[in-house]
């Protein structure tokens, strides 16, 4: 049987260590990211979603436990190999520049290009594939500051696609987007996991949409961290433990939160 697991974290504790002091944000985390799955990471503000993402992308060390990417400890993988296996879409704004959308997406090919960054025919093909998959060919010649937030988010996803990695991790890709663009983006992510067999992990606050579209969800609550399929999570009543407020109740029959 083919090994479907791309990334696995077993018994990891996340947090920060400053010299001797250790601040543990969450511990006993078991997560498993498999090929072709769209996985949502949800949790209240400040619960440590970003810290978890930083830990499993190798930016930050876990306090304990190990993160394995393709069976290898992520902290020991070289920067270049890591870049060929894992791409990210971050929340941060891009610095001012004259980059066009095409150039921006082409930067995703950097882990494969030579010392001066020359694009080969294969690189250009990959970039064009990414543009086609995300249907943004009409934007390719525009400058990145000329397009809307929603379009830019999709361009950044295209850049991650061009990087051609089995795993893509997105940090809150739907913030600042209206309902229409959120749906467009979620559908795109879903389509990508189905068509390319990539694993996509994203953090989000749009819980009801994530329930409808994702294959699995990782839910962070102060008590524990659970990974399961959305329907199982509804059955278990996990969503009610998400927010510590008696007025926010999860309505299992509607599949969304109601305010009482």
């Amino acid at each position: 049987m083919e090994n479907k697991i791309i990334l696995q974290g077993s018994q990891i504790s996340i947090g920060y260590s400053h010299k001797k002091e250790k601040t543990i944000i969450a511990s006993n985390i078991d997560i498993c990211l498999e090929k072709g799955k769209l996985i949502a990471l949800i949790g209240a503000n400040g619960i440590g979603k970003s810290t978890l993402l930083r830990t499993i992308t190798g930016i930050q060390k876990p306090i304990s436990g190990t993160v394995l990417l393709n069976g290898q400890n992520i902290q020991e993988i070289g920067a270049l190999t890591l870049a060929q296996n894992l791409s990210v879409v971050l929340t941060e704004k891009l610095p001012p520049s004259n980059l066009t959308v095409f150039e921006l997406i082409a930067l995703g090919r950097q882990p494969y290009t030579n010392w001066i960054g020359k694009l080969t025919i294969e690189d250009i093909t990959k970039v064009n594939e990414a543009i086609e998959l995300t249907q943004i060919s009409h934007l390719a010649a525009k400058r990145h500051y000329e397009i809307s937030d929603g379009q830019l988010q999709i361009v950044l996803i295209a850049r991650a696609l061009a990087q051609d990695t089995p795993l893509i991790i997105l940090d809150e890709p739907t913030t600042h987007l209206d309902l229409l663009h959120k749906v467009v983006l979620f559908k795109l992510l879903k389509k990508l996991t189905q068509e390319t067999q990539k694993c996509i992990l994203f953090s989000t606050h749009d819980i009801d949409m994530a329930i409808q579209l994702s294959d699995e969800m990782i839910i962070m609550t102060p008590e524990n961290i659970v990974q399961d399929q959305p329907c199982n999570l509804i059955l278990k009543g996990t969503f009610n433990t998400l927010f510590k407020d008696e007025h926010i109740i999860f309505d299992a029959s509607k599949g969304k939160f109601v305010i009482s």
Partner: protein
Amino acid sequence: MLFLFVINISLGSVSIPMKEVFRSLTGGIASKETWEYILINYRLPKAIAAILVGMGLSISGLLMQTLFRNPLAGPYVLGLSSGASLGVATVILGAALLPPFLATLLLSSYGIILASSLGSFTVLLAVLAVSHRLRDTMAILIVGLMFGSLTSAIVGTLTYFSTAEQLQKFTFWSLGNLGNLSWTSISLLTICVAIGLLLSVFSIKPLNSLLLGENYAKSLGLNYKKSRLIIIFATSILAGSITAFAGPIAFIGLAVPHIAKLVFQTSNHTILFWSTILFGAIIMLICDSISQLPGSDLTLPINAVTSIFGAPIVIWLLIRKRKMMG
């Protein structure tokens, strides 16, 4: 550029006909021996110096603008030139306090380059440390300005304790001067600029990835710490060595990369690198030609010319930036 090169050489307090300049440059002998002497030992080194200075300062500006994610960064604005001045001032003015053999060693070209490069390196590191805490464009500029004031204050204090002769030497240096460079100095400067430019060529790819910001660059497999060190080193050696030989020269480092960006409408450093080098050399030759004041015996300080040309560009950039924000 070749044309400007010849124009530049033909200009100066002694007027030499263009025809003679050509004849001398193409291997012939000019009709007057004094002309030949002036051309070979004064005008030619000066024109070469202008080209080196223009290329080096412009590239160091380009590197800093990308590294600091700041369109207004440049060796002069961020206080690098002041740092280099401090280094040179310490050597020229402080040499008297040292034992004679150390003083002669320090006052040699090598000592001055080293002091100047170290000075700009220190300031660059300090600005970098501060810029990590302040992400704001304006704050970094103000910090650069403060470093400038701080170093000039220290230089001021040093001048108070030095002799008139030393002071004159330093003042003359601080006005910025492309002339008076011997062939030895020119070859030293060439080596330093070549090293700086070579390091910059190897930084083209990292610079392109830095256009997406530090974190994206890292996710693309960039060894950020190493690349940053190379970029900083290249910038310091360029700005430091040039300032050591030619004095602090304002605005070239800031303005030229913008001209290249405007003309080519790109952020791709492969194109920007070569165009910045070319524009840097051309603009410096023009500025130097203007400073000769064609048709007169006077020579303006090169710094005055570059400031007249560069300061309006900075103001224009600030206004344009405001527009983009609002």
